[in-house]
């Protein structure tokens, strides 16, 4: 049970950072990015390729990977961000699928369907994670020493990701409350009015989109570090909709509800995997994977119809109406 809680906490940290990016794009700026998972993929792959193929140290490869995610975001956003929201949603989800199909098919670059293990070709077991594990072990030993307990790797992971997540939450919260954040809300509510007041709508949207891309990129790095090897199928469009559930659950502009939403989501989502009481005991472990996705789907439908402002949200500001 303790192992399970730590795993949930670690995963919720990743979802927190990922969903925070979506909150800025979708909740604050009104940009429905249905392809956010692709930004995780871009940065995860960029880091893995940088470390394994180019021999870069992690401390350089990781920031470069986030830069790659932001550049990909700009590449996608500059032409598409002026589109009406439904067109933008389709364009982003199509872009996300292009990334995934390319990752599946460019075996020479990405290792193909087998994932990053095959980065150096089949049978070579490429590893991008040794430096991260060294850091995580150092953290683990530190905690064990300090508190005279035997710390688990997941605990060390949590002790790294959660401070980062909390700092990011505080920064984003301040940004959202700043004049910049108010301009974004104004754009979301009425683009023409914002333009008439002399605000550079295009630039503000681009900034919000890039910030979201950077956060998704960072979440992609933590995901890569947590799992040690990943495949293109880890970035199916479904993962973006986990973030939508989390953001809508907490109220779409509610920054501090994101970690709570992430925790709730991960407990329910992972709980169906690890817990075995009735009625979950009726399903095989394979079927539970499908059951989880049914629950995610129902959550989206029920929340958006009956409680568009989420659990904690303010109906006037946080309702998903657009």
């Amino acid at each position: 049970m303790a192992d399970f809680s730590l795993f949930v906490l670690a995963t919720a940290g990743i979802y927190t950072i990922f969903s925070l990016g979506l909150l800025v794009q979708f909740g604050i700026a009104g940009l429905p990015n249905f392809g956010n998972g692709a930004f995780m993929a871009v940065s995860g792959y960029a880091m893995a390729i940088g470390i394994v193929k180019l021999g870069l140290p992690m401390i350089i490869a990781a920031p470069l990977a986030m830069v790659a995610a932001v550049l990909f975001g700009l590449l996608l956003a500059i032409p598409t961000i002026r589109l009406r929201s439904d067109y933008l949603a389709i364009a982003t989800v199509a872009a996300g699928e292009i990334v995934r199909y390319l990752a599946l098919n460019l075996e020479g670059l990405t290792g193909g369907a087998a994932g990053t293990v095959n980065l150096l070709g089949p049978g070579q077991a490429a590893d991008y994670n040794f430096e991260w594990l060294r850091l995580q072990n150092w953290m683990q030993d530190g905690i064990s020493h300090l508190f005279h307990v035997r710390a688990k790797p997941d605990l060390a992971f949590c002790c790294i990701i959660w401070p980062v997540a909390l700092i990011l939450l505080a920064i984003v919260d301040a940004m959202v409350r700043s004049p910049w954040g108010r301009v974004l809300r104004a754009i979301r509510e009425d683009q023409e009015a914002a333009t008439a007041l002399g605000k550079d709508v295009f630039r503000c949207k681009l900034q919000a989109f890039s910030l979201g891309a950077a956060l998704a990129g960072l979440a992609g790095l933590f995901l890569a570090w947590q799992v040690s090897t990943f495949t293109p199928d880890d970035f199916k469009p479904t993962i973006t909709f986990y973030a939508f559930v989390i953001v809508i659950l907490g109220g779409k502009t509610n920054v501090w509800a994101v970690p709570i939403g992430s925790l709730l989501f991960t407990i329910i989502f992972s709980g169906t995997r690890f817990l075995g009481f009735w009625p979950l005991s009726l399903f095989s472990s394979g079927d539970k994977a499908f059951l989880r996705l049914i629950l995610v789907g129902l959550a989206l439908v029920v929340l958006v119809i009956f409680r568009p402002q989420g659990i904690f949200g303010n109906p006037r500001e946080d309702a998903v109406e657009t």
Partner: protein
Amino acid sequence: MNQLLQLVFNGLVTGAILAIAAAGASLVWGVLRIGNFAHGDYMALGAFVAWALNGMLGLDLVTAAVAGIVVTALFAVIVDRLALRPMRSRGLTSVFIVTVGISFVIRNTLFIGFGSGARTFSIDQSMVYLVGPLRVAPGQAITVVVTAVAIFALGWLLAYTNIGRSMRAVAENSDLAAVTGVDTDRLASVTWLISGALAGLAGVCLGLVQGTFDANMGAYVLFLLFTAVVLGGIGSAYGALCGGLVLGLVMEVSTWHGFAGGLEPRYKLVLAFGVLIALLLVRPQGIFGKARLL
């Protein structure tokens, strides 16, 4: 040359399936302002209902297909009543999110109900008709005939019946249509009935042409449908029919070795998504649509 002819034929078969599915999606989009992310899963539902009767219970394919179409059509109406009608006054994005949720529920329920293995209809997959230089599989032959009938029936319905005229009127200007006395609730149900029936038919045909299929079949073609919809101009059923045929042709013919060796088949989808994004940028109103600000 023969290879090119064969590719054109295959492209028309794929294109016809995309066309009828996309026409249904575009109809709903135009009449009800709903971009349906579950449309591909409606196709899968039709295919699986037909498969349950044909592959599991051994009924003949025609009965099974008709049952698949009817069930999908009714299902689409029920989903509309339960989940989409409460969303009528809400924006496009939130309706999108609801349909994404519906697609998750359908797809994974199919996985739990029917398993994740590959399914086939009980037709002779190894048989091939030789028509001139073309090699035509039985599934393709059925699809060509059935989709041609469906395309003309839909065209006739939209052009000459009252309900079809109402649909086009609402798609063009919903306020004006409501003022002139169009019963929008009834129209919504009829639109979903047609859209669901077309999706069910397209799903059965796709299952026949692919040979094997699983519950992900709809998710794989969803963005092809959207591409066809955007190609033809969102909301235009005629446009989507053309868009589907064009997209099917482009995807197949792009693999012809006459074009600088041809595109590798596995990049066909990347090509289609590239077309979609390029279209959204350059001509979001579609090839036939009137230019307007989006």
